[in-house]
């Protein structure tokens, strides 16, 4: 395994997760409600689907 890949993983992967988790805690300084977590879950699901669909739109299947 190329060590650069590990570094890329560390620089891309970990900060993203940490930021998303901080966002949950932060915002108004108030503790989040169930509804806010439900909304965050729905938004994150849409974000994952959108990123995948964007890639697929640029890489049409040849099979």
């Amino acid at each position, binding site marked *: *395994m190329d*060590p650069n*890949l*590990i*570094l*890329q*993983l*560390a620089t*891309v*992967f*970990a900060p*993203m*997760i*940490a930021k*998303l*988790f901080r966002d*949950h*805690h932060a915002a108004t300084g108030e*503790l*989040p*409600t*169930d509804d806010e*977590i*439900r909304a*965050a*879950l*729905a938004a*994150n*699901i849409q*974000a*994952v*689907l959108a*990123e*995948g669909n964007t*890639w*697929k739109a640029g*890489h049409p*299947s040849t099979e």
Partner: protein
Amino acid sequence: MRLRLTVLVASIVFACGCATAPASLSPVGVQLWHANEAVVAIGTFQHSVIELNKVQVCDGPIAANGMAVCHALVSDRNTRIVIDACAATVRTIGQIPEGWRPAALTALDQVDALLDKPGQQTLKVYLATARTILLAIPDDPKPRTGPSKLIPRFGGA
């Protein structure tokens, strides 16, 4: 190399471990919180693979024009496998949040099984890291049971 990997895994697990669910949430809210963490982990795995698909490796034979033949570090086929699995997983979690752990872990197993050999080799550490993150998310709280019923006594005087 091993040190870097250890630091990486430790930092990610630490990031997960810090994200304990706030006390303001009900048991259902805590469940949604954990499901959200799983979606973030799956999404980040997908994002990493898409980024690796952009990386060109030029280690092939030298062509007639003197240039080495290049290819994507993670092929389009393998990237598509990951994207399809991640999409199915997050949709399932959206419909059944309490099933986030089996849904996510099964998806990683399926990805591993469907990848070709080079893909398995390249994504081995990424799959392992995603699995580590998912396993670091705490279990969901047990659903509250109603007040225990008094056992009726029979045969009393």
